[in-house]
């Protein structure tokens, strides 16, 4: 059947199972927007193209499906760059479609022309410049395949205006993506599995480092069975949170720069590290020269290029994590690591005791209170989408995730402004789930225009602004490393309550501990998005902290007495 290029775009998206798309129209993509009206796909009109990419990203992370964003040429496309780079760093499968000026005009500096495939080349898994209608279907099928397969990531398709306008025969079946003619088989060989088993079964102080790959592989169950059978404690990376239940007795908590002190100490003392779909990021390892010197390392990753990148490993198991662990399970010996686990228990000591719930109300509102109360009110069951900074770390410490894909956060790129749009995407992917945005006052103002999208699209999420009047994490670095010279970190903020109300959303300001619970409950009951401005202690600090490049166990610990960590029963 004969179709225009623009129609083929939608024919392909429908056949790929796409139901929602996030975008912003403009000249070079107009033919495609015109054809959109005839196809059963919901279009969410964003207020900035960066928001569209974060929404597609949030959609992908919440559901595991490919998220799709669309924009016009030039500034529309360049506005997508931050979102694409965010998805690349966190291995999130999205497809970004942009219009391009007519193929005859490419290279002429035409109006709203920019070389966007040149721009996105290093921040995509792959990208395309499509100049003919008959290239569209094969390109789309291949793009979706590339985005979702192996280690997922963003794919960008730039389509010239004339390719959208001209017609050709549309044949979905013959547009099947061709397989690469050769790829080496780097999957682990039997002797590598055997060597891994020997190391694991012989280890006295093993530790699992649980990463994002657990979610991407769908390996939650086998990871749990593996840890339980061999009695190996599990620590999580930021993106690994949710891959192993936080309430599980073997769960230790987060590792790294703001990880739990006992986790970082345990890593330094371990004799074997099992890295499950994580990439030894510098925020996780601290000083590489002194990182886990006592430990042999076994690295499980689907991406062969990750093996031996930052940390030299004894065994590299390349392949899908779930499949690799299933191979290992029969040979895995039931372990009794009671001594090691008891030792980690001692490392916890007083610092594990965080009964912030039963503290006497000192009149101060701490971000940790807000997040811990949010955890209780939502029974730990909501999808929490965070931005970047102090609140992100407090979320990781005080909201305990038992289920996968319930914490959505920009880890690798650390993109401020991610939370609000990503939460919109997550809600559309999981309409039945409760979704909360936890965002700082700085990051919120980077993409708060998407409140208008929320109103127009009638989206029911809730927004908790952790408002401390500072770019808090940067302020913390200035406090520790720049003699409290607060260069450009104090924020003069608008009245967030009035601002949200101007958008047409119910809003509230909370300044007292006692009001947190009721405000959260009221927001949960409201069928609209509610914005809550939590005005918290201004100069609060995230502890513990491993200064950048320092040894992993050289942590800055919380000074005592502390207003937050007190004695009492461990809430977990």
């Amino acid at each position: 059947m004969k179709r225009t290029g623009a129609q083929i775009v939608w024919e392909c998206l429908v056949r790929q199972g796409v139901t929602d798309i996030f975008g912003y129209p403009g000249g070079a993509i107009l033919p495609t927007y015109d054809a959109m009206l005839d196809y059963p796909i919901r279009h969410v009109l964003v207020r900035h193209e960066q928001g569209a990419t974060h929404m597609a990203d949030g959609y992908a992370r919440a559901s595991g499906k490919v998220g799709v964003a669309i924009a016009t040429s030039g500034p529309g496309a360049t506005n997508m760059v931050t979102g694409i780079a965010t998805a690349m760093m966190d291995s999130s499968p999205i497809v970004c479609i942009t219009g391009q000026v007519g193929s005859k005009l490419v290279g002429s500096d035409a109006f709203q022309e920019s070389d966007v495939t040149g721009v996105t080349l290093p921040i995509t898994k792959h990208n395309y410049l499509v100049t003919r209608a008959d290239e569209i279907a094969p390109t789309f099928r291949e793009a979706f395949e590339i985005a979702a397969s192996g280690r997922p990531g963003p794919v960008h398709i730039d389509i010239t205006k004339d390719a959208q306008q001209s017609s050709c025969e549309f044949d979905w079946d013959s547009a099947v993506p061709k397989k690469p003619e050769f790829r080496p088989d780097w999957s682990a060989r039997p002797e590598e599995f055997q060597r891994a088993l020997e190391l694991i079964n012989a280890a006295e102080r093993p530790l699992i480092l649980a990463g994002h790959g657990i979610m991407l592989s769908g390996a939650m169950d086998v990871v749990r069975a593996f840890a339980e059978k061999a009695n190996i404690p599990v620590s999580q990376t930021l993106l690994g949170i949710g891959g192993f239940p936080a309430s599980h007795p073997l769960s230790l908590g987060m590792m790294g720069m703001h990880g739990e002190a006992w986790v970082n100490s345990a890593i330094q003392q371990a004799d074997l590290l099992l890295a499950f779909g994580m990439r030894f990021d510098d925020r996780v390892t601290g000083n590489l020269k002194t990182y886990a010197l006592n430990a042999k390392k076994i690295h499980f990753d689907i991406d062969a290029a990750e093996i031996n990148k930052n940390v030299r490993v004894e065994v590299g198991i390349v392949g899908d994590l779930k499949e690799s662990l299933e191979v290992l399970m029969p040979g895995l010996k039931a372990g009794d690591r009671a001594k090691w686990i008891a030792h980690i228990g001692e490392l916890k000591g007083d610092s594990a005791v965080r009964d912030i719930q039963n503290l006497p109300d000192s009149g101060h509102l701490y971000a940790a209170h807000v997040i811990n109360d949010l955890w209780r009110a939502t029974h730990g069951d909501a999808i929490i989408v965070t931005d970047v900074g102090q609140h992100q770390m407090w979320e990781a410490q005080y909201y305990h995730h038992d289920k996968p894909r319930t914490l959505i956060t920009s880890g690798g790129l650390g993109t401020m402004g991610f939370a609000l749009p990503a939460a919109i995407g997550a809600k559309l992917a999981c309409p039945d789930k409760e979704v909360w945005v936890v965002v700082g006052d700085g990051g919120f103002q980077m993409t708060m225009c998407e409140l208008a999208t929320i109103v127009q699209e009638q989206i029911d999420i809730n927004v908790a602004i952790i408002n401390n009047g500072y770019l808090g994490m940067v302020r913390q670095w200035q406090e520790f490393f720049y003699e409290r010279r607060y260069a450009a970190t104090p924020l003069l903020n608008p009245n967030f309550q009035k601002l949200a109300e101007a958008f047409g959303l119910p809003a509230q300001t909370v300044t007292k501990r006692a009001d947190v619970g009721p405000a959260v409950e009221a927001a949960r009951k409201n069928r609209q998005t509610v914005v809550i401005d939590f005005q918290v202690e201004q100069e609060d600090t995230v502890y513990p902290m491993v200064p950048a490049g320092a040894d992993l166990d050289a942590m800055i610990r919380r000074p005592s007495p502390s207003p937050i960590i007190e004695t009492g029963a461990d809430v977990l």
Partner: protein
Amino acid sequence: MITTFAIHVENKPGVLTRVSSLFRRRAFNIESLTVGHTDRPGVSRMTIVVDTDEIGARRLEAHLYKLVNVLRVENITAAPAVFRDLAMIKVAATAESRTHIMQLVDVFRARVVDVAPDSLIIEITGTEDKIDGLLEVLRPYGVLEMVRTGRVAMSRGLRTASGTGEGLRIAEDDHNVFHSV
């Protein structure tokens, strides 16, 4: 360690950028890069020389295979292979010095491809060492200009960079043999 890759890629716009951009953003410095057609239509072959260790080379190979347009990568550093570089060297040559220079050209099995009243162009093919050697002895006469292709390489025998041939055959080592064009 100097590492040589033979890389077969689809001959499409932008593929050279994809490959070179990969080396750049992963912080590997390319020592030499050559590209040309192969016997297969639509397929180009790159020879890339890079200074890295064994682990770096393995990571680079893994990264290269992540590029959709890359068909085949072969690290031929350790494989028995023929490495060649082609250079054209313009040397100042007076009536008296010309004979001396042409004798040197003979010794190196290079050849003179252009003669002008006050200069010569010499063409030489061989390993980088051999070309460096000729360059060294020409320098006193005055090297006016030089262009080199950079290294091209091919593994010996039936083993090919676009597919490993059956019954790998390796020719005897002729390291000291100079091949003239």
